[in-house]
């Protein structure tokens, strides 16, 4: 084999191998780019023509109080889900991190909610949270007044509850994997030194778990910011549950304003992009410190 030939192969082979996937990717990228282009037009489904209007959609969005409200609700939703799911998941993971007989089978129970389609889970909870539903029945048994779970005042919290039910196992599984991968030596030395449980937790466990925590936070944040299924199945987008993707859905498929809807989506996409980049680089650094290697 001539040296030239080998070089040609080495150089272009990877591209060839990756070609099918690339074709699919470009096929998906094309709509993304179209999304950006359309967001700069006044495209409405009910009108046959499109005009380029530059950044008008974005400016309108920034001036629209409903847009900011929707963004605030979305950020609040993401914040709430993280604050509840990560500690709860950590707690469950720590409980599961014991060598007790039968604990392995518990893991399956744990992941059942996670493996269900979110929209089906939301429907299930909708039936349970109905005014005459089983949840209010239990509440009635302890003497409290029935709660309008999905009415405006509580609906966001109720949907957060469904999210917690669905995704705490996600955090638990990741953190459990983290806990199980921790080296034993630091703990042994700490016990020799008679360190308190709390001290061990705060100064040994937490720092070493950091990469896993960040990863859980990363995925949950992004998914929460994008949440659509849960809201659509329960409240269809009431005032206090108008998350960004739901509002974009309304804007596009109920009010026919495609251009405007896409401008909302581009904005949330940018937000997601920035946050994910930040979290991923943070994770990289944490991994380096924790394991001494770069991913």
């Amino acid at each position: 084999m001539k040296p030239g030939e080998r070089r040609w192969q080495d150089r272009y082979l990877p591209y060839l191998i990756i070609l099918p996937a690339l074709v699919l990717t470009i096929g998906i990228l094309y709509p993304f780019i179209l999304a950006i282009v359309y967001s700069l037009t006044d495209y409405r489904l009910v009108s046959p023509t499109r005009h380029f209007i530059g950044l008008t959609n974005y400016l309108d969005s920034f001036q629209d109080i409903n847009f900011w409200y929707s963004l605030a609700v979305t950020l609040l939703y993401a914040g709430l889900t993280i604050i509840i799911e990560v500690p709860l998941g950590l707690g469950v993971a720590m409980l599961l991190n014991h060598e007790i007989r039968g604990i392995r089978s518990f893991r399956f129970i744990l992941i059942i909610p996670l493996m269900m389609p979110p929209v089906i889970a939301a429907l299930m909870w909708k039936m349970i949270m109905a005014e005459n539903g089983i949840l209010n029945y239990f509440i009635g048994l302890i003497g409290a007044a029935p709660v309008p779970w999905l009415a405006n005042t509580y609906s966001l919290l109720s949907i957060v509850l469904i999210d917690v039910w669905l995704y705490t196992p996600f955090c638990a599984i990741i953190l459990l994997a983290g806990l199980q991968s921790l080296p034993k030596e630091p703990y042994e030395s700490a016990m020799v030194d008679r360190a308190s449980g709390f001290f061990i937790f705060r100064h040994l466990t937490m720092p070493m778990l950091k990469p896993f925590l960040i990863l859980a936070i990363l995925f949950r944040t992004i998914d929460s910011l994008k949440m659509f299924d849960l809201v659509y199945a329960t409240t269809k987008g009431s005032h206090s549950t108008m998350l960004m993707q739901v509002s974009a859905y309304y804007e596009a498929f109920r009010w026919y304003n495609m251009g405007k809807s896409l401008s909302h989506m581009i904005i949330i996409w940018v937000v997601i992009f920035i946050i994910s980049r930040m979290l991923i680089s943070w994770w990289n650094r944490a991994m380096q410190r924790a394991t001494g290697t770069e991913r």
Partner: protein
Amino acid sequence: MIHLRTYRYVIFLTFIYFLSGCGKKSEEINFDPSSITDPFRWDRASGETIKLHLNKHPFTESLIPTLNEFTELTGIAVDYSILSEEEYREKIIIELSSYSGSVDVFMTGPFTEWSYVRAGWVEPLEEYMNNPALTNEDYDLDDFFPVCLTANRWNGKPGYQNYGKGSQWAIPVQVETYILAFRKDWAEELQLSPPRNYKEYYNFAKAMTREIDGRRVRGVTARGIGTWSTIATGFITGFASYGCRDFDDQMNCTINSPEAVEFTEIWINTLKECGPLAWTSNSWYDTKEQFESGQYGMWLAVDFFAVGFENPEKSRVVGKVGYTLAPAGPDGTIRSNIWTWTLAINRHSRKKLASWLFIQWATSKEQLTAAAIKGNWNPSRRSVWDDPKVASITKDWDNYRDVVSENLQNYARVCLTPQSEVPAIGDRWARALQQIWSGTDAQVALDRAAADIDRIIEKSGMKSFTQ
């Protein structure tokens, strides 16, 4: 490297822009109905196939089994697609906006027609209806309740004064009006007569909110989700009875006028104090189930939900429901909103003649009578309404028949101002109602909504609309 990549992206982007910048070509398939003059024949379009898009509804269910009769009569084959209502509303737009003639006949109704007409998706029907070469002599247009036909006429211009004028865009297959359904057994027990005006409405609801055998029952229920259907049903009926309008003659939004605020406050307060705890997530089926479960006292509802109320398999209030006209406004005006499911022809259909033959067959006296017997309520034709078999279905429903007849005769009209942005405006308005229910001051919430709605009207170009 980055330099090169950006350059490539720019080229790519420009290419995309040009591709997407070509507006859609709307090929209008020009068919001139008046060009046909020879005597009427059912098999004029024999050999064609038409595509129907239908909503899941008793009319659809009674229609499908009879389709082969149509094919035998006319030689036209029929393809159909059925979706449940929410999905149907969203998907029909896709079909129509593709300008491809992928649908020939579809179900619609007044408010949605307004959007579609403005978009140029609906074929006007007068020239078909009035051409004896295209419409068989037994069709009898006068047999339809006038309100049903009027509701589906529009000249394309926004404004209250433009209702019922202009082209006929669709033929109604059923009609719904709004009546007050209430628990007559509770009313007897409490020695109350059903409310005649909105003050009595509030008091009636309040009186009926009490404890029975340790269970809390409430006086009233209504739709509450944040979509236009919450507005366009019971609420708008009361709104119009109260003398309020959603837009003035110059298309300025007036949902925040003094009377409108007054009515909105009565409506919402009644619901807050005597209505469902989770009102803002009440879809129509939640509301219906609540009433049928026997725990609510009254509902300003779609009249034919009585079918469900009087169904022993599903309802716990069979025989206990009274029906009466909607309460009157302060000056005695009674109004009822109206909705008709209709059949319309896609303006870009390639099979307009076959489509019209289908519509006249499906809305003929025989077809609609059979449909009514199978549950398609209320009939849009007077002869069907008066047919003894049809009349006997409702004989056990208290005075349902009288109330609905009166509605159709005197009070029913579309209470929304014709404009093409009903979803966006209705949704915004419903959102304001939800805010008021959650505690916002009514005037403030409605002012904000009116401002947003004015903006929507302006953006849609309807203020300077000329067609």
